[in-house]
């Protein structure tokens, strides 16, 4: 029987309608010494208002440099069962679909080798197995591999790519997010498992501009579905929304950022000037039964998002306005550009400099020139508003 700890502060977090992580830790602690010690040290953190975890160290599985986050406690004498408490990141299936059988196979392995605690899922998208010892890493990895799972990314590598549910269950998906996410993950297995970049590199695949995976805010390469032709309109369904009391003029027409819509109350018809449409998704979100993205679908590729550390937070900006994602040749050309960018970044990037920061440092125009992409107006919110132009000097003049 595990040692019994008193945890009055955490016990309070078992109450209330939201599912309780404390119940989860206690559940696992019933027959797991690691989870039991975790509960105790967490209560101590709640008393002391400070964490007790130390930096990682280099731990991992043979031949990989990523996928395991080393974690040690700063008071191992008091909590010996979690003196090592390493995290393993397991690459999730695209779209986070599972069968009950697949989930049970992971649970059984984690019961045998670790704390019995998980995150479903980590922020980047991996299945996170929370806490085990150094000795258990390799056996856990191989047990997982034999039921079809592999480790995810960590450190300065391609991080586990993730995607929204896409065409599996969403009428707004403008390309097969799960298919491209899987293809990309398999293409970059080496880069994912063996960190060789200046810093992390994240791919995220969103099926439409609603961006349910926050690609534009979090991914170095944000692939955001969009379309080029007209929004598909079902007039009868528009009329039904109107008849059911929707305020189409105020809630749809006036919310259009391009002011490209008109609604006629008499005929109950919605007229869209598709040439001016910015593909923002608002009208489609508001009337999913009446409006849908067009048929000429693809994706916009944006580059450079990141959280604040080091040089400040960035949102991704446009690199390629439209790519036909279903076309294998176009995808291949896109991968070529990705690899060109990675090469230049590996060559010129500073240690722990994300691609977005690298672009800020060298200048977008210089960056584009180096990777062989022409600058176009779609890439800027507005052209420069200062006259400090570095006109290039004619090299023949001396």
């Amino acid at each position, binding site marked *: 029987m595990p040692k019994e700890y008193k945890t009055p502060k955490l016990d309070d*977090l078992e109450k209330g309608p939201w*599912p309780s992580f404390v119940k989860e830790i206690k559940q696992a602690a019933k027959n797991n010494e690691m989870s039991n010690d975790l509960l105790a040290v967490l209560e101590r953190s709640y008393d002391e208002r*400070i*964490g007790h975890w130390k930096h990682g160290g280099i731990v991992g599985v043979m031949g990989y440099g990523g996928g395991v986050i080393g974690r040690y406690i700063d008071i191992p004498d008091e909590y010996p069962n979690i003196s090592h408490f390493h995290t393993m990141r397991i690459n999730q299936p695209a779209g986070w679909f599972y069968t*009950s059988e697949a989930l049970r196979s992971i649970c059984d392995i984690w019961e045998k080798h670790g704390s019995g605690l998980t*995150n479903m899922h980590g*922020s980047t998208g991996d299945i996170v197995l929370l806490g085990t010892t150094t000795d258990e890493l390799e056996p856990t990895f191989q047990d997982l591999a034999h039921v079809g799972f*592999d480790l995810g990314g960590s450190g300065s590598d391609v991080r586990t790519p993730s995607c929204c549910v896409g065409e599996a269950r969403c009428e707004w998906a403008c390309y097969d997010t799960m298919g491209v996410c899987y293809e990309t993950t398999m293409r970059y297995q080496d880069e994912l498992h063996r960190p060789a970049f200046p810093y992390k590199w994240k791919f995220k695949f969103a099926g439409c501009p609603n961006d349910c995976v*926050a690609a534009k805010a979090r991914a170095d390469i944000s692939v955001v579905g969009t379309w080029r032709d007209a929004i598909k309109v079902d007039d009868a369904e528009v009329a039904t929304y109107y008849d059911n009391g929707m305020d189409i003029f105020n809630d749809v027409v006036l919310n259009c950022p391009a002011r490209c819509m008109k609604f006629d109350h008499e005929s109950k018809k919605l007229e869209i000037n598709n040439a001016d449409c910015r593909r923002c998704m608002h009208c489609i979100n508001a009337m999913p*039964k009446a409006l849908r993205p067009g048929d000429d679908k693809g994706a916009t590729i944006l580059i450079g998002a990141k959280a604040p550390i080091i040089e400040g937070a960035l949102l991704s900006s446009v690199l390629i306005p439209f790519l036909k994602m279903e076309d294998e040749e176009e995808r291949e050309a896109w991968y070529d550009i990705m690899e060109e960018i990675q090469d230049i970044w590996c060559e010129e990037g500073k240690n722990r400099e994300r691609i977005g920061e690298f672009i800020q440092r060298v200048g977008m125009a210089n960056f584009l020139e180096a990777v062989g992409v022409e600058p176009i107006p779609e890439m800027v919110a507005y052209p420069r508003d200062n006259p400090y132009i570095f006109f290039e000097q004619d090299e023949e003049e001396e």
Partner: protein
Amino acid sequence: MAEAQRERLTDIGPPHYEKYLPPVVKKNYGQWKYHELVEPGVMVHVAESGDELYSVRCASPRLLSIQTIRKFADLADKYCDGHLRFTSRHNVEFLTTKKENAAKIKKEAGEMGFPAGGIGHGITSIVHTQGWVHCHSAATDASGVVKAVMDDLFEYFNGEKQVPGKCRIALACCLNMCGAVHCSDIAILGVHTKPPRISHENLNKMCEIPLVSASCPTAAIRPATVDGKASVEVIEEQCMFCANCFTVCPAMPLADPDADGISIWVGGKVSDARSKPMFSKLAVPFIPNNPPRWPETIAAVRKIVEVWADNARPYERVGEWIERVGWPRFFRLTGFEFQKEHVDDFKYAGLSYNRSAQLTHEPWEE
């Protein structure tokens, strides 16, 4: 031994998603026509073929025991032919083609402690990080704050209370932002407020000095010899407590029970709907850590939600509403004090000054 004879597998990648898809998804892949909210926590997707897929979205604490995951698997076996998925905001979704099953799943998952909700206009799970459960650089806990806030906002999750639009809340326990909270309607962010304490005894043994110096966004760290030992010094007036030095050098801890706490940020979004993506902006610079329930943090988040819900137009996200009515109104309605910390002084700070005479005059008296 079988263990020793087993082939060692590497670089196999994740399982192909196709083998986990429900038959109705495989059949209608890329052929969905529309979706509708059936009741709070339940939506139906209808395919061109006429097939229907019901999804029951249930709350999850994200930190799950294998015992609970097995219970999810049992529920999926009972009603969904073994099919389920998780969402990008940590919810669990049970997938079934039968409407009557959806209601049963909602009921049974609720009885298990995993209530359904979080679809459409409302507040869904909080994307969050590890906190004191598992992170070395946490300035606050993650799971505990999330639990406390969601208990308080539960009526916005389960559909009891209506709001104008989506409101995405996220929590990161330090500025590294594993939860990438910087584009959320409401972001709860752990912050340190004291400079690093340098262990000159250990620094040169544990860290690379050039790497430590380069890690500082404000160039506040420079090499120095202290008591004959190679180390660094920190120009404390230049330190904004980001802890990036600690990330590369364990000999420079910043965590402090009284000086660590929570800051609250508002008005970010990632969707392109209506307005372009926006960063979250500072609402409350510092709230001390007050476990286990963080009452001051709960109150501040609730205040923002209520003020937005009472004042925004349909579909308006928090940031869109504030852009329309202006920040003076936001601070007046929430009662948050506008302080020196609210005025940016990092790169491009000038872009955030109000470069216009367009102003509301607060408070407006009729």
